[in-house]
């Protein structure tokens, strides 16, 4: 297993969006959405990508699927570099990579029945006869816990959680190896959120799926992920197993994030002393701070942090990887 290729690997991935303005619409600046991100995702595993708004996590998901073209860097899917591949070469690979979106209200076409939504992947990729497709869509819907009687209903007839199930069924249609889920539960109520997380975990076991799970909620991420990557302003700051990240968060940003999550437990001690909270706002990705991007908010920041970009380096025990990008971790 050690020799096996990872399902997905990205190397030094960068994405800069031009800001256009002025009379001729020339680029007058850049949004540094991704400034060199590298990681691997093994077959059958879940990599959680966590960070606050504007950290580049959604851009990363879209760049991997080439829904957005990368500025620089490489994306390997089963060892094959897809970052420069032409679209007609890419299309067969896209069957293997699917996406689930945050908002089940806007990601399903309101004018299509569930049947036609679920048939569409087969139609686009010209798979199966009409009879086979009918059977498959019914099976898909049952796989995600809905009934085949729902096939001729429209998205608006379903609740948020049910719509997310339809989105999951659509993603499963072509039997993908990788699913990129971008905030799949953040629009849902708690009781529904747990149902969807359980469904995703069950499907993973049944089908040996790999997930790239993108979310802002560290508790959700740590629950579902094997490995967790913490992002801040376009860079990975920490990469470790879910357990290690919880037990020993090493980057000051990860520590702040962990500390900031409100926990539904009554703790009079914690209530008395105001919690340690990092100040300030996330800086704009248009002009990220020099050196370590986090230095403007970091309680440990030294002169060096303002000039030198810390590289991700191994701090694990040799058995398990634990990467941290901090001069002082």
């Amino acid at each position, binding site marked *: 297993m050690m020799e096996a290729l990872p399902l997905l690997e990205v190397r030094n991935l960068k994405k800069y969006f031009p800001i256009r303005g002025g009379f001729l619409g020339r680029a007058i600046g850049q949004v540094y959405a991704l400034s060199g991100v590298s990681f691997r995702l093994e077959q059958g595993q879940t990599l959680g990508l966590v960070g*606050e*708004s504007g950290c580049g996590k959604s851009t990363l998901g879209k760049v991997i699927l080439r829904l957005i073209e990368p500025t620089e860097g490489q994306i390997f899917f089963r060892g094959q570099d897809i970052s420069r591949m032409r679209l007609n070469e890419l299309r067969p690979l896209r069957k293997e990579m699917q996406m689930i979106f945050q908002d089940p209200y806007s990601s399903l076409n309101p004018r299509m029945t569930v049947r036609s939504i679920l048939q569409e992947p087969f139609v686009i990729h010209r798979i199966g006869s009409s009879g086979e497709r009918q059977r498959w869509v019914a099976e898909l819907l049952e796989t995600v816990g809905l009934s085949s009687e729902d096939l001729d209903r429209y998205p608006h007839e379903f*609740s*948020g*959680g*049910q719509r997310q199930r339809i989105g999951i069924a659509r993603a499963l249609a072509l039997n993908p190896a990788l699913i990129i889920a971008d905030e799949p539960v953040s629009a849902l*109520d*708690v*009781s*529904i*959120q*747990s*149902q969807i*997380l*359980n469904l995703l*975990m*069950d499907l993973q076991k049944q089908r040996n799926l790999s997930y790239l799970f993108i979310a*802002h*909620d*560290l*508790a*959700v991420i*740590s*629950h*579902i*992920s094997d490995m967790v990557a913490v992002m801040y302003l376009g860079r990975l700051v920490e990469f470790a197993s*879910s*357990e290690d990240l*919880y*037990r020993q968060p090493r980057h000051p940003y990860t520590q*702040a*994030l*962990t*500390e*900031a*999550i*409100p*926990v*539904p*437990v*009554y*703790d*009079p001690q*914690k*209530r008395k002393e*105001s*919690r340690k*909270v*990092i*100040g300030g*706002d*996330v800086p704009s990705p248009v002009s990220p701070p020099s050196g370590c991007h986090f230095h403007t908010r970091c309680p440990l920041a030294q002169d060096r942090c303002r000039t030198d970009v810390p590289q991700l380096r191994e701090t694990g025990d040799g058995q398990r990887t634990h990467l941290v990008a901090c001069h002082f971790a």
Partner: protein
Amino acid sequence: MTEALLDLRDLAISFQTESGRFRVVDGLNLSVKRGKTLGLVGESGCGKSVTSLSILRLLECPPGHIDSGSVFFDGKDLLTLTEEQMRQIRGNRISMIFQEPMTSLNPVLTIGEQIAEVYRIHQRLNRKEALNRAREMLNLVRIPSPDLRLGEYPHQLSGGMRQRVMIAIALACRPEMLIADEPTTALDVTIQAQILNLMNHLQKELGMSILMITHDLGVVAEVCDDVVVMYAGKAVESGSSEEIFRNPQHPYTQGLLRSVPRLGQKASRLETIEGVVPSLSKRPSGCRFHDRCPQVRSICRESSPPDFVHSATHRVACWQHQKEDG
């Protein structure tokens, strides 16, 4: 025991829709003690925001309608006041902040003008004095370089800063009561933590009471002294934070608490509450939670449970507690 500043008694609110009239809040009781924070918690559509709007009589009527009940504030029933009397209370003695600070701020007025407006209306201060007071408020909510910010527009501020401005506006007249409807839901966690700390600090400094409306049990546990859990228009459980989080009694509260993923609990299945929140037109008979309840009994399908007393401060609307009522 502290006297309640805000006391809702048997409040019932309904909505007129094309397909009929529906009760969205049904016989709600809650009281916010002086200087304390009460959390009103529940999932979408449970009636928590409608309740908060009704307190200040901001609910749009029609389609909304307050059918019955009272909203006592400092001993007076707000539902019996004239619109003119209400105006003396809104923004002055009771203030409100909302989830989305961008839509609650006026995009074409500067921050300074928007805060100063409160002083000009409620305290009839002149422009200069009002602006001075606005600057003090920005200091109070810890906005850096307040002089600069006074002249800026909402779009120039980050989400966290906008929420601080909203808080500054809400607290300008030092209200006795603040109603906060999902004040941190749109914010990132590190910014949420800043805002919650700020609210805690200001509450101590100004001695106000807070009604915190949220879906986030974590936020409730961190800032609320007392809790009311709502489900489908009814309060199913109420008690102190300690009682609700250490010893939840209603199967819905128990289910909610168990279905929240927590840091460091990996890879096991989460416990869930089966089914979905019933829509307004399909609310079940009897206890509204019975079709999702793991401990359902036949009586639950037939009649709606009253509030049973679990302790002096702890009430549970669940038939399992009938015997304890003695």
